[in-house]
């Protein structure tokens, strides 16, 4: 059963700041399997984005540093790669789509220039072939009159169009893995639906392995195969999406699901998890979630919960199940 294309084990990325060590990612394990869409779920500040950035080592260093852990891709351990090796992997093998399309495109270059640059960087194509490829990609992403869009500057496109351009750009060199960092957060609902369609299509047509980062469980339910829930820089629960939603084990996961608005009940307050995300400089002792946990026990504040296997595909880190 070795169809994992990317395996992250015990990854710890710390930021050494003047105010203290920020343990943004503090021991994350997950594996992305070939052709699946794995969702990384959690609230803001739980380390989802830093996890993604760590895979391609894109955070600022210093202050950031991967202090331990292993990221296996192919036969490589990405944490040990030289920056030159890593540069060849970025875009070619592992591509990333960013949250805000507006700021992820260079405002002074045309769309065409940016995509062609990217293609020529990794593939042995001349300008005209690269251009053709770019136009094909843009049309595939559902951009009308792609040839004209090539000469546009980013500010001439709408938000949804820009997000498509970004996705087209990250797909331009046929990457093995696509990391999408909240690509649906900054767009409105109709665009969100269209973008999710694109991702669904990618999976169907290209068997793309996608690491999809989001805080939105509705999105997870839409496109995810499996999901890993993160809290306080750690993964707390991993299972298939249907299992996570119908049978959440970790109190945090159930809390998140309870927060989803239920349209069958029109009245009443929306549920929320009390408290706020912990300060990453001073994580609570033991289980990071214990100060907010409705089922907190004595052991929770003393000891970190080990990972427990509920079923073959369902793992959770909580003292309730040990």
């Amino acid at each position, binding site marked *: 059963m070795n169809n994992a294309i990317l395996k992250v084990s015990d990854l710890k990325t710390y930021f050494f700041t003047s105010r203290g060590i920020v343990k943004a990612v503090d021991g994350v394990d997950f594996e992305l399997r070939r052709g699946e869409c794995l969702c990384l779920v959690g609230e803001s500040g739980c380390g989802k984005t830093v996890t993604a950035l760590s895979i391609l080592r*894109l955070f600022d260093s210093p202050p950031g540093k991967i202090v331990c852990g292993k990221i296996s891709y192919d036969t490589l351990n990405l944490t040990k790669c030289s920056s030159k090796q890593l540069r060849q992997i970025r875009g*070619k093998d592992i591509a990333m789509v960013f949250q805000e399309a507006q700021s992820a495109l260079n405002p002074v270059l045309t769309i065409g220039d940016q995509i062609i640059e*990217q293609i020529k960087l*990794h593939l042995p194509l001349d300008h005209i072939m690269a251009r053709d490829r770019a136009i094909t990609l843009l049309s595939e992403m559902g951009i009308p009159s792609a040839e004209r869009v090539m000469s546009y500057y980013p500010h001439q496109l709408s938000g949804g169009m820009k997000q498509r351009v970004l996705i087209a750009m990250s797909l331009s060199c046929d990457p093995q893995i696509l990391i999408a960092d909240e690509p649906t957060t900054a767009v409105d609902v109709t665009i969100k639906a269209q973008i999710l369609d694109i991702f669904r299509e990618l999976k169907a047509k290209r068997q793309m392995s996608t690491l999809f980062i989001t805080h939105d469980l509705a999105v997870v339910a839409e496109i995810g195969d499996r999901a890993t829930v993160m809290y306080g820089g750690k993964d707390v629960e991993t299972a298939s999406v249907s299992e996570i939603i119908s049978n959440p084990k970790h109190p945090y996961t159930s809390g998140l699901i309870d927060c989803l608005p239920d349209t069958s009940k029109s009245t009443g307050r929306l549920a929320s998890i009390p408290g706020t995300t912990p300060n990453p400089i001073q994580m609570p002792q033991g289980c990071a979630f214990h100060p907010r946990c409705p089922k907190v026990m004595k052991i929770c504040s003393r000891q970190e919960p080990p990972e427990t296997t509920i079923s073959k595909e369902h793992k959770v880190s909580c003292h309730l199940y040990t």
Partner: protein
Amino acid sequence: MTEMLPDKVRRISQHLRSNTRLINYYWQRTKRNKLAVCGLAFIIFLVALALIGPFFTLDPTVANFEKKNMPPLGFTIEQSIYNIETDEYTTKEISGTWEHPLGTDSKGRDMLAMIVSGARVSLLVGLIATGIAIILGTIIGVLSAYLGGWVDNALMRFTDIMMTFPFFLLLVLIIFIFGPSLAFIVLAIGLTGWTGIARLIRSESLSLRTREFIVAAKALGASDNRVIFHHLIPNVISLIIVIATLSIPGVILAEAALSFIGLGDPTVPSWGIILEAGQYSLNTAWWVAVEPGIMLFLTVLAFNFLGDGLRDAFDPKSNV
């Protein structure tokens, strides 16, 4: 291969078309500032004058003592002439002629020809020295911001030292050591003038560096070189254009000032050199000093107006 050429032509023409649109946009914004347009017109006139003027004027180096100190067209002065045979002064009225519309200097050289060739020198000094300063300033500023850490610290402290060092004293020192050759003067001005530019470019690049498209470019495999030259520098081009326009007059003035205190290159007739020569004959031939002075004044003003206009046009926050 036969199909590729028209395709290439089409691509380039398309690129130019898409660029004219942008240039047109900024032109529309700049156009609303009348002073900037006047400045631009004067600069275009000056460049044309410097480029093709010397083919139409007299030779600025030919002296003719018979016709020395002739006033400009439309002016008449009284000149006393010493006659060596009779040992007495006779007074004669001299008016400007069409042959020398701007008059002649104390050696009988045509002022128009000197002003025109001076324009060539002054513009060249302005452009080359500013070019050197801009290139140095941009490289140092961008590197400092992009690399950060100790590189940033070292480069910025070096900039501080360069800034606190008295600029004029340094110029005088360089010229004293290497001699008053125009090439050294230009080089010296360029090599000392980059400090402020480096600071501005650094601060602009610092905010650009954290923008998502830079991280995105890296995420798609761009090297540091590529990020700097493809993504950072194109984004500070508008700033560079404005700084360049605003620093050209300073450089022209610096050269004139050096010439004026006698440290200019005496073999090249820049406006500063003409001005310096004219100051001794202010009471007999005021135009020799005034004409290059007016030209300097107008040139500096024109560049400043244009620079202000461009700055407003490039600034998305300003409502021109």
